[in-house]
């Protein structure tokens, strides 16, 4: 099934010889020749109005001997998107022009494609590895790259049944360890290179300056990876002039496990519990994004009752996520644990519901293709009603009273770290970050999925573009979520909870699909390519935490180092999905 409805204008006529329609069965959009890519992208952005680059990822078409880069672009005024691709022969060096000059939001995503596929983006301002470390050998998402404990090409592994005598993975490795050496590697002759060299080289232009005849050296400060404000193992290398941030580079990948490679070894169903572990606060929305992409590929409908249950679960998830975000933001600002623990009370109650319906508090694994795994029991439904109609509105209001007018919070947040609407769109920001910058773009309204078009709610938007708005927008969104929940709980229809028969072997026709949901942190997208077999050929996750960090430097430059902590807190990152 075609993903987004494409432009009626025939772009192949507009760019003769350089653009052709993608006619592979199940695929849609346009294939652009690399040499015309920049021109095409500028045309799509300026003439057709697709100003918002949402997703960029590489695909290794090993059988065809070509490397592909896929771009999903949308209009910030809403509506379906446009998908275009560019292909290059799979012979190193693979060169494709960088689109950072058109959409600055491509920066981190292009670095990721370089890191994973070895696609060189010419004219990229800072093309370094991003998730793997400098000096890592090979490009792990290439189809011919194998991990250290490589078992078999695809799951289910034949070694498990019928003759599955248990062996530990390290027994299979000649070194008994999780190490992969290049053939002919000699540890005696190896000279270590400085893995930080490239990183600091990227920052060097700011290293020193001359002011009034006095040479001033700027200080490099490494925030993280072990820093309490980074919510995990995220590191930012900051160049300081006194306390003012001059430049900043995010360093990530400490939690990298190559989720996408695992996903391509897995069968379609196997991936469902793995998606729980992306943004581990919101496994319900993660499940939804993935099942939506696969449902698009399969061309199936979701059972009516399941649609409502999905809405209920993901809105509850949004409320608890925003509660925690506000609590943790206040933690970062120094209000140690009072707001955070108030937030945890509501989260606790919501997680109790998740546990009762799905069996697990955080790793819910609740969605299945065509529905959900089990119905909501009576006790949980009563609890949801109590929360929605009574407790949550009261508690959100209590948060408002506790924090919003607090003079310290206002002076720390107001007018700080401005990100204008134009920049927010250009940097591919999504979710509350985009809406706090004055762009009323919410996928639930702009490109509706599920049954969101049946509910009456407003897209929360704030226009001051500062950190205070990023805090306030979360309160607004919680109010809207409660509104949606009230309607969803009232309208919850009876009926089956899945349109499909439960099966662990799922037939997915060949094709591509991009499923996007409005996650609490921003747009969560899954780009899935199937070749008709049991495992996805390509499984890409476009995570809001990752893409939203593209604008981190933009927001931090000129602020004080202490505000970096608050800015990072207000973006709302979670390392599970940032590093994947």
């Amino acid at each position, binding site marked *: 099934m075609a993903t987004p409805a494409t432009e009626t204008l025939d772009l192949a006529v507009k760019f003769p010889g350089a653009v052709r329609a993608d006619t592979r069965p199940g695929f849609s959009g346009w294939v652009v020749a690399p040499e015309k890519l920049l021109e095409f992208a500028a045309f799509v952005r300026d003439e057709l109005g697709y100003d918002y680059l949402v997703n960029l990822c590489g695909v290794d078409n090993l059988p065809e001997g070509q490397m592909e880069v896929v771009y999903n672009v949308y209009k910030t005024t809403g509506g379906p998107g446009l998908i275009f691709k560019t292909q290059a022969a799979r012979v190193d060096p693979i060169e494709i022009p960088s689109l950072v000059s058109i959409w600055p939001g491509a920066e981190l995503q292009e670095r990721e494609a370089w890191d994973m596929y070895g696609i060189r983006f010419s004219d990229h301002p800072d093309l370094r590895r991003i998730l793997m470390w400098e000096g890592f050998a090979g490009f792990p998402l290439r189809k011919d790259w194998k991990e250290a404990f490589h*078992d078999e090409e695809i*799951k*289910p*592994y034949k070694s*498990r*049944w*019928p*003759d*599955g*005598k*248990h062996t530990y993975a390290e027994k299979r490795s000649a070194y008994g360890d999780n190490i992969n050496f290049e053939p002919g590697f000699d540890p005696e002759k190896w000279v270590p290179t400085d893995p930080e060299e490239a990183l600091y080289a990227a920052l060097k232009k700011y290293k020193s300056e001359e002011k009034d005849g006095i040479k001033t050296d700027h200080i490099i400060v490494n925030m993280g990876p072990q820093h309490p404000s980074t919510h995990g193992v995220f590191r930012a290398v900051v160049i300081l002039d006194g306390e003012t941030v001059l430049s900043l580079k995010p360093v990530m990948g400490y939690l990298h496990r190559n989720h996408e490679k695992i996903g391509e070894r*897995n069968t379609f*169903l*196997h*991936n*469902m*519990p*793995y998606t729980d572990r992306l943004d581990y606060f919101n496994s319900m929305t993660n499940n939804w994004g993935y099942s939506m992409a696969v449902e698009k590929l399969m061309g199936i409908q979701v059972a009516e009752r399941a649609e409502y249950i999905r809405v209920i679960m993901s809105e509850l998830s949004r409320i608890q996520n925003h509660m925690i975000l506000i609590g943790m933001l206040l933690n970062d600002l120094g209000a140690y644990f*009072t707001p955070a623990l*108030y937030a*945890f*009370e509501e989260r*606790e*109650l919501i997680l*109790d519901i998740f*546990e*009762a*319906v*799905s*069996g*697990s508090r955080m*790793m819910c*694994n609740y969605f299945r293709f065509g529905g959900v*795994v*089990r119905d909501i029991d009576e006790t949980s439904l009563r*609890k949801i009603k*109590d*929360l929605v109609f*009574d*407790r949550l509105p009261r508690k959100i209001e*209590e948060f408002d*009273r*506790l*924090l*919003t*007018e*607090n*003079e*310290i*919070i*206002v002076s720390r947040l107001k007018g700080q770290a401005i990100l204008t609407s134009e920049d927010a769109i250009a940097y591919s920001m999504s979710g509350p970050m985009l809406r706090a910058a004055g762009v009323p773009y919410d996928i639930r309204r702009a490109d509706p999925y599920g049954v969101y078009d049946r509910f009456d709610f407003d897209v929360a938007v704030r226009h001051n573009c500062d950190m205070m708005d990023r805090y306030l927008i979360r309160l607004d969104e919680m109010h809207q979520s409660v509104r949606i929940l009230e309607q969803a709980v009232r309208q919850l229809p009876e009926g089956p909870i899945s349109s499909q028969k*439960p*099966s*662990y*072997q799922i037939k997915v026709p060949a094709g591509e699909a991009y499923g996007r949901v409005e996650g609490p942190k921003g747009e969560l997208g899954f780009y899935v390519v199937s070749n008709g077999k049991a495992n996805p050929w390509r499984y890409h996750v476009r995570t809001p935490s990752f893409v939203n960090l593209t604008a981190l430097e933009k927001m931090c430059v000129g602020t004080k180092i202490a505000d970096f902590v608050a800015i990072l807190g207000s973006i709302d990152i979670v390392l599970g999905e940032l590093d994947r």
Partner: protein
Amino acid sequence: MNGKGILKGMGVTLQRFVDTYLDDIRWWGKRYYTPEGIAHRSSTNTKGIFTIQYPEEKLPVPEEFRYKPFLLYEEGEKGEKNIRCTSCGICAKACPTQCIWIVRGTDPATGRPVPQPAGFWIDADICMSCGFCAEFCPFDAIKMDHNYEVASYTRNLMDIDELMKPVSYYAGIRPLNYAREEEARKAKEAAKAAKAAPAAG
């Protein structure tokens, strides 16, 4: 007025502070270390302290709670353990982490496969408690356990002896599921009998 916002916020914390003591007085002696106290503290109209004093107190887990899988056996009359598993391998195929290892049983005389596992391992260190094995098992032979206190000093590879638990244990931890499955089984048998009866008659 400067400081008004801070005072307003402090009012909220003061309210909470007072509520905590009021709730303690209202539930005098019964709020902590009692099942109804724990239920009250995790209900939607709770106020005051939320904390469950683990391990002295434990939150009751809901029926659908899943931890590590276990294998069910029917208790025979002479205390023998009749395992339900037929070593069909569906759980091993549905397992996302591929942590289930099964050796299919064979008849020593004929060498033919028999519906019983000769070996069954679950690498509980790798298991992600997703519950697919229990969900897709056609024989209700593998289920998810409620016991979450499984910390150990060594790696946790569970073999068939560790995995086996009686059906009565399962009926105890998941009464509703058990009743539903038994009903389905009886209905299936009744349908089978009804189908066989006219053929015989």
